[in-house]
């Protein structure tokens, strides 16, 4: 039971922060299928930075953990500028832009990882070793029966994500920026008429989405493996999109969806071990979250309502 909660949370939280990013972008009216690519590129950028810093300045790589998180957010944000530029500035189709970014991110990061490994470290590898992230347990709280597991074996990034999520929630629902952002996704004309520049709001939203995706990506890199490798493109970005859709583009319900995915995944592992299945079958069990996605789609897609102006290219003249 403990492992279920521990593993479930360590998967659900990175997924959740990526979903929040997606919510920001989509509620501002910009379809964001690029989360997969953004999390990959963000993680790449963060991993590359700390690997290089550690190599050239001889710093133990474990000490650069928080820097890696920060730089991954910067990396995701930088890459998201591309999506903003294409879909907001040049009014390109947002779905195509998103897909292009995903393909591009994968190609570029895999290529660069091998090249840099070869050039700097003289090794033939498509991975950056970023070291393990030290887990910790909160005393007392972890002694609570069952729920105490929440406070056991926590990755530090989980704490960062929780604080980021709370802050993101506050900005989204309580501040002036959040109010304008959510209005853009429903009726950008009303925002324009109120004297607020729609494209600026949308650009910021996409950048936030990039940063949060980067944070999610590096967290996966730390938790699932101890390195950055092409294995990061496992489709978790798409799962984040599925989660936000089930969450009806609202932050709290999306958290529920992410928890569900997290526990489904952890439960799948658990079952695999329990049944002592050969490793070939465990791959099958890994599909559990996606099968769940399909099932949920059937039930939720009727009642859910996307932001009204989602994916629409904002054109001032159109009525």
């Amino acid at each position, binding site marked *: 039971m403990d492992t279920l909660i521990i593993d479930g949370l360590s998967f659900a939280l990175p997924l959740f922060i990526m979903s929040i990013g997606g919510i920001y972008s989509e509620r501002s009216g910009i379809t964001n299928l690029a989360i997969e690519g953004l999390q990959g590129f963000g993680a790449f950028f963060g991993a590359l930075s700390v690997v290089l810093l550690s190599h050239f300045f001889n710093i133990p790589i474990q000490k650069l953990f928080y820097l890696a998180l920060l730089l991954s957010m910067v990396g995701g944000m930088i890459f998201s500028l591309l999506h903003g530029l294409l879909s907001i500035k040049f009014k390109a189709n947002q779905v195509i832009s998103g897909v292009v970014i995903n393909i591009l991110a994968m190609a570029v990061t895999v290529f660069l990882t091998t090249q840099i490994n070869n050039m700097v470290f003289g090794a033939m590898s498509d991975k950056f070793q970023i070291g393990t992230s030290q887990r910790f347990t909160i005393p007392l709280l972890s002694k609570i029966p069952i729920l105490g597991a929440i406070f056991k074996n926590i990755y530090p990034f989980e704490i960062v994500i929780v604080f980021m999520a709370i802050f993101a929630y506050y900005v989204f629902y309580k501040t002036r920026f959040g109010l304008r952002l959510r209005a853009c996704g429903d009726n950008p004309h*009303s925002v324009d008429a109120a004297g607020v520049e729609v494209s600026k709001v949308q650009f910021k939203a996409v950048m936030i989405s990039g940063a949060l995706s980067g944070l999610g990506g590096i967290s996966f890199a730390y938790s699932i493996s101890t390195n950055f490798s092409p294995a990061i493109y496992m489709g978790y970005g798409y799962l984040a999109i599925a989660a936000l859709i089930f969450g009806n583009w609202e932050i709290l319900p999306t958290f529920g969806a992410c928890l569900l995915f997290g526990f489904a995944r952890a439960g799948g592992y658990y079952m695999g071990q329990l049944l002592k299945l050969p490793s070939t079958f465990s791959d099958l069990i890994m599909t559990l979250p996606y099968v769940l996605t399909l099932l949920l789609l059937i039930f939720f897609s009727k009642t859910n309502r996307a932001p009204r102006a989602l994916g629409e290219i904002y054109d001032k003249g159109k009525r």
Partner: protein
Amino acid sequence: MSEYIVEMRNITKRFPGIVANDDITIQIKKGEIYALLGENGAGKSTLMSMLFGMYEPDEGEIWIRGEKVNIDSPNFATKLNIGMVHQHFKLVENYTIAENIILGIEPIKKYLGLFSHVDLKGATENIARLSRKYGLEVDPSKKIEDINVSMQQRVEILKMLYREAEILIFDEPTAVLTPQEIDFLLEIIEELKRGGKTIILITHKLEEIKRIAHRCAILRKGQLVDVLDVKNTATREMANLMVGREVSFKTEKKGACFQDVVLEVRNLSIKNNDDFDVVKDVSFKVHGGEVFAIAGVSGNGQVEIADAIAGLTDIFQGEVLLNGKDISNYSIRKRTVEGISYIPEDRQTYGLILDFSLAENLALKEYYKEPFNHNGLLNRNVINEYGEGLIHKYDIRSSQGIKTQVRQMSGGNQQKAIIGREIELKSSLMIFVQPTRGLDIGAIENIQRMIIEERDKGKAILLISLELDEIMNIADTIGVIYNGEIQKIASADALTTNEVGEFMMGVTA
């Protein structure tokens, strides 16, 4: 300080292919209700859009309170205390009334003096106070999607007042309202005037101008025709100036000459989605050369009858015969081929594809036939030539001819395009549902004349209208519907307006 609060001097604005405003000068005094009258597409909205900073004039100057200004954005217009209620409301549907009103100028408070947040509670109180002050009762915590159009309009007005607008522009404010709501709105506008506001009213409805405006500028095809004192001008004179010719309020028509029965509806019953009987056992006949009008208050089943005949709604019981053939189970296309033309109530949703070109829309019911379609490929040349022909024949005006995106056209011309397309089908039955809704006098007159012309060619016409005047004007036979049942069918000559009105209310004499 000048006598005028707003002066627009020698304003010219060109769009590709069209001069929307040609050297227009208007001067508006503080505290007056100034009307801009003109047909659809005369340039009224364009002129006001420039005053509100949505466009900039190509030539000319704008002076506000005696100072020359360059209004380059709605933001700046707002700073000059100019507000505008657009024809298409600009509201966020999943936001509350309060959130919509404060959008862009949100009041801010701080938690613990640190975390700033939007002060929704304070705003809600302010808005409630404001709405009471001007008699515009609203519940600020309600969502836009849950309130009706008239209420949404109040929100737009409150939006301006919240921004302390002094010069209020209303763009066709009554187009979407019921008669009672119109009365209420006009009272509000007068109330605002008494409160010292200056009001500019864009409209093509003469009665409204007559009721509340002081002065009225008449625009026609982008030019200023005249500025009149409303009190000393007859409605007819304003109408003539607006249209540019003598307007007849009564459509001239010869006596009808009935031919064979074209449409026969027998014991028709229709259920709606909630399994509720909206049409109950309705029977009537329409002959060639006859205008059969169904009169009734909105929502009494008349539109469902039209939809059932055209094939848009399922028939529960009864049958529909066209030229003696039972078409009750035919598909829509088969009915069209058999000879039904349909001019729907909602022309933008059912009548046209707004993002398609005019030529494509004109071929919408024939594109699959030779020569429009040859071996499965559309023949653009044929479609374009056909479009050109119809544009010429039915005088459909647009900025770029066949290439015009239909969305950009005025309502009157959109309707002309639909009617032209449907007439060209040469069907034996034409169904018109609310053909003149939202159109100006010139266009109404035009369309009513077209209907009569088709009747004189021997077509059977089924007209469904909420405008009693229109029905009395052009119908040969009137069927009055109330609560899904036909109350009375009689020759139009045998009924007075009052009698029809009584049947419409279900008063059975």
